[in-house]
């Protein structure tokens, strides 16, 4: 049937109608922090795995603990989002392999011990002395330290694996929800992982790294940004080649309500500008060295914010 279409519904459920808004600010905050933590763990562990003989700065040594702190903030946001907070323990009474949310809750539980051992083994002798000087801590820490040192490479590899799992899952969480055409793309997992790597690298650049660490982090950051741009391109092409619901997802970002935010905040200010700054900055130190990482962090957050909002607004109800 051609012509007009008029639909009237009596359903006005809060947070469902007229546009789904079940997930609020907590979820993008969590997805952003989860990705960033994944990036921190992966980069910290890779640096040591690839260059075991190089000295490491205090900042890099302390980073796994900072990562766990940030992850806890993210989990707090996730907890705040639960409508039935008293039942939070229910996540850990089940493992449902079809549910990325279930995978995620178990991955989070894995990241803590791995990140903690990663951090313990990273401490320099002076930091260890300070810790072991505390009577209450020493009996627990001494065997843990011995263990973390003895299995150092295994711990670092586990940290990479846990980081990749965490970064991928933050994307898959949305990417498996086929009910929202905007999220119905296999690209989201790798995209959020790449974005996690670049935000993790950007976060590291705020701290005092030594010359070689700095070079390593910038190289990885550039690589992650390029990968992210390619994946964003693949996502848009995938939408363009898809059915009408995918076309609508494309429209959201090309002409529709999220177009200007997506292209200006994510692609231009969050990826292209900092990429150019980092490439130029290699040759001569640019002023405003903190600007590029700040832009990357803001862009990474904007990416999740926009995709979450656009995803909730994309629905089969648009095609009655």
């Amino acid at each position: 049937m051609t012509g007009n279409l008029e639909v009237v519904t009596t359903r006005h459920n809060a947070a469902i109608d007229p546009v789904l808004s079940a997930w609020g600010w907590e979820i993008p905050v969590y997805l952003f922090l989860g990705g960033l933590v994944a990036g921190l763990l992966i980069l910290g562990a890779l640096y040591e795995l690839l260059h075991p003989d190089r000295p490491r700065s205090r900042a890099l040594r302390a980073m796994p603990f900072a990562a766990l702190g940030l992850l806890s903030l993210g989990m707090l946001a996730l907890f705040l989002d639960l409508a039935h907070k008293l039942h939070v323990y229910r996540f850990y009474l089940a493992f449902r392999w079809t549910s990325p949310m279930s995978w995620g809750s178990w991955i989070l539980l894995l990241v803590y011990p791995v990140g903690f051992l990663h951090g313990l083994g990273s401490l320099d002798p002076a930091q260890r002395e300070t810790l072991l000087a505390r009577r209450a801590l020493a009996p627990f820490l001494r065997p843990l330290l011995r263990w973390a040192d003895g299995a150092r490479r295994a711990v670092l590899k586990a940290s990479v694996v846990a980081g990749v799992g965490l970064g991928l899952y933050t994307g898959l969480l949305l990417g498996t929800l086929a009910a929202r055409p905007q999220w119905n793309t296999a690209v989201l997992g790798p995209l959020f992982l790449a974005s996690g790597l670049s935000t993790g690298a950007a976060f590291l650049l705020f701290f005092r790294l030594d010359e070689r660490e700095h070079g390593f982090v910038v190289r990885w950051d550039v690589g992650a940004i390029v990968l992210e741009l390619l994946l964003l391109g693949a996502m848009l092409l995938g939408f363009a080649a898809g059915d009408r619901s995918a076309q609508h997802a494309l429209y959201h970002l090309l002409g529709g309500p999220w177009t200007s935010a997506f292209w200006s905040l994510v692609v231009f200010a969050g990826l292209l500008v900092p990429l150019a700054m980092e490439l130029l900055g290699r040759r001569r130190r640019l002023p405003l060295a903190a600007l590029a990482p700040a832009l990357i962090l803001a862009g990474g957050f904007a990416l999740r914010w926009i995709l979450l909002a656009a995803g909730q607004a994309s629905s089969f109800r648009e095609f009655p």
Partner: protein
Amino acid sequence: MTVDTRLCVACKACVLACKAENAVPDGFCRDWLVEETRGEFPDLHAQNRSERCNHCSEPPCVDACPTGASHVAGGGAVLVTHDKCTGCKACIAACPYDARYVHPQGWVDKCTFCLHRARRGEKPACVSVCPTFCLEFGDLADPDSDVSRRLRERRYKVLHPETGCGPNVYFLE
């Protein structure tokens, strides 16, 4: 379940019956009316549909649930165990029909096909109250049931078959 869109007059008795039967909180509903008009005057085509959870055969809401609160009960109805629900809303995001909502008490709520009534041998509240008898409920696996018979005799559609969820509410046209 079948909904005869030719008989439905959009009186919303099914909506009110469900609210009363299931103590659905103010401002929410488990079933609702959609009035759809297509075409160009004077060639118009109107359809009234009493809609609810489709109790899908491949329910993505159940797949998305991390705790097992959302589950497929015996007979194929998709239910939520309140005690297990964390209110994480993964199922809400996963449902292409937006058939769920967060109950003010924190768990996620939706149509249950009035299984508590079915156990007593009664039809769902919406079905039993409908003055035009346009709603029918029964076992699709049983070829002699009223729903199977209606599906044999009439043209029908399901909503958004492209989702691949296998919805089980059929709209007779």
